[in-house]
């Protein structure tokens, strides 16, 4: 109790002002009892001391509040530094992705021009290799950009429209066949495969799964892609005879998996399956994998026809 502004009014004013909102406040009052103490704590004091109190009690209270405040300030600084770093990294990835693409585009088109102009394999074969390597880099950049977008937006933004998944699938598999002329890719479809989806994103998923199956499967084993009409949903299978090592399975969909399990076959950033999973989840679907030496590997996607 004080003349003029009373303790509670002052407390409210201090808590309303952003500059003093986190200031530790110890209330000293002659009002004893649970109710008075609860009222003070509810109003936002950190401690409530009842008069008469001992000097030792007050000093202990002040020093513990000051220590807690110091810890809190340290934590806030750390969080704001971390936030700046995360923000910086995301901008960095996005800008780098865009700026890297322009010279890469020049490399790829120039390699294509060399193949068009070249009359002999002495020229066209190395030019084709330049293009393939640049293509791989372009895929990695796309994935990094997807990842940056995912983290900034907190999820994938879909552009849904009426799509025939069978048609999307055939187009993707045709592209893969021309990139891997030796691979055996079989497609089986049943029923009505139409729905409202983001066709480009689903093409990315099919290309990722079937591409993995070609690259990581047994060299002569066929890749089976199946699309089945399941009423309100579509089921997509991608199977190949190769098995995924048991210790890799639990973290298969984690981003940057490739960075921790570096082996010769790892050619990407380990982002493809992570992004595929995000695309499927954004469509309110599910993606699962089974893999063993007997049955080989099977990715199964369950995709509702309507995303909304």
């Amino acid at each position, binding site marked *: 109790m004080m003349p003029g502004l009373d303790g509670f009014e002052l407390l409210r004013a201090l808590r309303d002002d952003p500059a003093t909102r986190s200031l530790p406040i110890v209330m000293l009052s002659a009002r004893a009892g649970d109710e008075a103490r609860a009222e003070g704590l509810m109003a936002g004091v950190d401690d409530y001391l009842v008069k008469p109190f001992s000097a030792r009690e007050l000093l202990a209270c002040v020093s513990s509040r000051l220590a807690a405040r110091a810890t809190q300030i340290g934590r806030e600084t750390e969080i704001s530094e971390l936030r700046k770093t995360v923000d910086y990294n995301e901008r960095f990835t996005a800008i780098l992705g*865009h700026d890297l*693409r*322009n*010279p*890469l*585009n*020049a*490399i*790829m*088109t*120039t390699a*294509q*021009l060399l193949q*068009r*102009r070249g009359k002999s394999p002495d020229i066209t074969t190395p030019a084709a290799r330049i293009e393939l390597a*640049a*293509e791989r880099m*372009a895929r990695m950049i796309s994935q990094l950009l997807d990842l940056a977008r995912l983290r900034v937006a907190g999820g994938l933004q879909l552009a849904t429209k009426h799509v025939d998944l069978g048609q999307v699938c055939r187009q993707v598999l045709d592209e893969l066949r021309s990139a891997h002329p030796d691979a055996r890719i079989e497609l089986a479809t049943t029923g009505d495969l139409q729905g409202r989806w983001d066709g480009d994103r689903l093409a990315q998923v099919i290309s990722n799964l079937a591409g993995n199956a070609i690259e990581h499967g047994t060299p002569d084993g066929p890749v089976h892609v199946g699309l089945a009409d399941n009423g309100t949903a579509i089921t997509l299978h991608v199977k190949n005879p190769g098995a995924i090592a048991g210790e890799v399975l639990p973290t298969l969909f984690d981003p940057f998996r490739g960075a921790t399990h570096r082996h010769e076959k790892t050619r990407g950033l380990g982002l493809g399956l992570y992004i595929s999973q995000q695309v499927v989840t954004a469509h309110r679907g599910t993606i699962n994998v089974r893999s063993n030496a007997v049955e080989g590997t099977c990715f199964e996607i369950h995709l509702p026809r309507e995303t909304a």
Partner: protein
Amino acid sequence: MILVVDDEVYGRETLRDALEDEGYRVVVARDGETALRELERDQPKLLILDLVMPGMSGNTLYDEMQRAPSLAKIPVLVTTADPTRAPLGVPTIAKPIQIDRLLALVKLAVDKA
């Protein structure tokens, strides 16, 4: 004549080479302002337009063209790393560019004109 607008020099010069190999006459510009001056000087049969450029962007140039009756009728083919930026309804080729695909679209546009 085909006008190619891109701020990235090597990509631009490669497109010029590929188009000249097919027998087209090609003029290049490195930004929107230069392109606009070229457009007003000599009307091309087709404009191949990059979007993200310092200074006047491809999108701004496209909007300017749509406001000028003499320029609005020039066919445009957009090349961009981010096709979501392309103006609605304009034929678009994603970067990295597939030259075969680009030449096919160029032929289609020029034949139609």
